[in-house]
């Protein structure tokens, strides 16, 4: 029967249907999204509120908080510098270790390794990221510190020191950087590599001057996450960096001989301090207790600023393909 449209035999009904499954799933997905947003909002509210409570007390002043060189709650001295300084030291040391090594690993995996080797190495690297940080902490204390003592002298390197913790933080975030960067590098279209090779570029030229710049936004994202992780890392510094702030009498003492930068001496970071104070039998509603929220709020601001800066960098240097 030619010329007979097959649909003509069926009655036409195009009315809107209610699809229960679709609505439920949409609700679930929206709910899941809301959980993360609400959690963030909740954390910010708690931090701001308790930090406000801290600063409303008579003893700490904004000025002292930001310019003081001693953090000693027992005698009501709340200068953030010693803690902030230790956090920046461990983070900078960590990033100095992790960024070049992590990037090199990523470039190796994405541009040099055979698919087979990559198939083995990448999961191994990701397992490294799954090791509990407490293990890394004792690795710092039990391996890295003795190593540093042997290298730089037993008297130079204290048993608790910033360098050991910083280096191990670096090792800890290498998988983060390498894995995320490798994803970014691998996502660069093959056509771009072929274009470079087709013009007589070597592997290195292709990797560093075509693929790397094209992947820079993904790599920057990896660096942001890694930096936030380094700044926020707690267990390693609590175990290996020291259990007391590296206080200074005044700025002259801090900067004299660049004392504050000495990586071989103990220092307590912001996170390390928070965990030690809150882990002890500290009662609610004391000034010590409130102070850790001020520290945490500052920590939050730091990671926020890092995020904003890196996103600006990404926008500035992104190569869109």
């Amino acid at each position, binding site marked *: 029967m030619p010329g007979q449209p097959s649909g003509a035999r069926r009655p036409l009904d195009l009315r809107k249907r209610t699809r229960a499954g679709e609505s439920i799933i949409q609700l679930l997905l929206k709910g899941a999204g809301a959980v993360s947003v609400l959690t963030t909002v909740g954390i910010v509210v708690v931090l701001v509120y308790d930090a406000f409570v801290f600063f409303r007390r008579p003893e700490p002043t904004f000025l002292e908080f930001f310019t003081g060189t001693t953090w000693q709650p027992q005698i009501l001295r709340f200068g953030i510098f010693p803690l902030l300084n230790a956090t920046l030291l461990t983070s900078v040391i960590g990033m100095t270790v992790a960024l070049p090594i992590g990037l090199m690993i990523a470039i190796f995996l994405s541009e040099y390794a*055979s*698919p087979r080797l990559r198939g083995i190495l990448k999961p191994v690297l990701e397992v490294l990221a799954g090791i509990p940080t407490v293990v890394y902490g004792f690795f710092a204390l039990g391996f890295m510190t003795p190593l540093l003592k042997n290298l730089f002298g037993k008297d130079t390197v204290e048993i608790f020191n910033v360098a050991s913790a910083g280096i191990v933080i670096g090792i800890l975030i290498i998988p983060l950087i390498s894995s995320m960067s490798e994803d970014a590098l691998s996502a660069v*279209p093959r*056509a*771009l*590599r*072929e*274009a*470079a*090779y*087709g*013009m*007589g*570029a*070597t592997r290195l*030229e292709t990797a560093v*001057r*075509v693929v790397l*710049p*094209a992947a820079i936004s993904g790599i920057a994202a990896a660096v942001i996450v890694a930096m936030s992780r380094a700044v926020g890392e707690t267990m390693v510094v609590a175990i290996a960096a020291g259990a007391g702030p590296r206080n200074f009498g005044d700025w002259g003492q801090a900067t004299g001989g660049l004392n504050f930068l000495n990586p071989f001496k103990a220092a307590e970071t912001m996170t390390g301090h928070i965990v030690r104070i809150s882990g002890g039998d500290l009662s609610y509603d004391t000034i010590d207790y409130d102070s850790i929220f001020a520290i945490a709020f500052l920590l939050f601001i730091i990671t926020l600023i890092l995020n904003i800066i890196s996103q600006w960098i990404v926008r500035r240097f992104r*190569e*869109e*393909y």
Partner: protein
Amino acid sequence: MSISLSVSSSASVQSQQARIAVESRNLRVWYGKFMAVRDIHLQVEECKITALIGPSGCGKSTVLRAFNRMNDLVPVARTEGEILFQGKNIYDPDVDAVEVRRRVGMVFQKPNPFPKSIYENIAWGARINGFKGNMDQLVEESLRGAALWDEVKDKLKQSGYSLSGGQQQRLCIARTIAVKPDIILMDEPCSALDPIATLRIEELMRELVNQYTIIIVTHNMQQAARVADYTAFFMVDDTRTGYLVEYGKSDQIFMRPKDKRTEDYITGRFG
């Protein structure tokens, strides 16, 4: 056997005076255990356009990519036989693939400019090739050579991706000639372009061929007939291995094909 027949016919194509830019002998390319093309004998004349045509999967792109060792980038690929470039087999163990690619440039199917400025797209290749001269001049020269200068001269700082598809492909050609290769390989350079952009590329090819040897893979037989001086027709056998059926001057291939299979293909009976 018809293959050996076609081989001898291909050899007779070249007159004694014609200079050979590049020549494949007994070329075989394997991907793992799979033989992609077999026994390709092809002499490519200097400063002419040679088109490789044939149905999908006949290995014409594989053959093209053998000419600048692009297949090396595929981990499982293996090449047998010889490709003689100015008398030197580029697959000899002492040959550096990077140096080969500096002399045998390539333009790809989809325009693939670097995500950099138009200027940088041209300058990049020259720079990695150790170019020390006047870069501005080279950029202008190359863009003029690719018939793109007038369209982009006021926006050299803009991204290569701001251009239209046809302009991007001409940018890729400009970047290739900036390296001053001897041979330019083109892998279906117009397949992602509209007919007008295609025509411009074809005109450009006819200009470029005064200075460069061009080998082009195309699906478009009209294109081969329009632009190519020589045409090689490939087919694929039962084991999916590609082979060369017939090779000759384009007008001979398209007007008086010697092989029945060529005739069937160009008259549209299959493929």
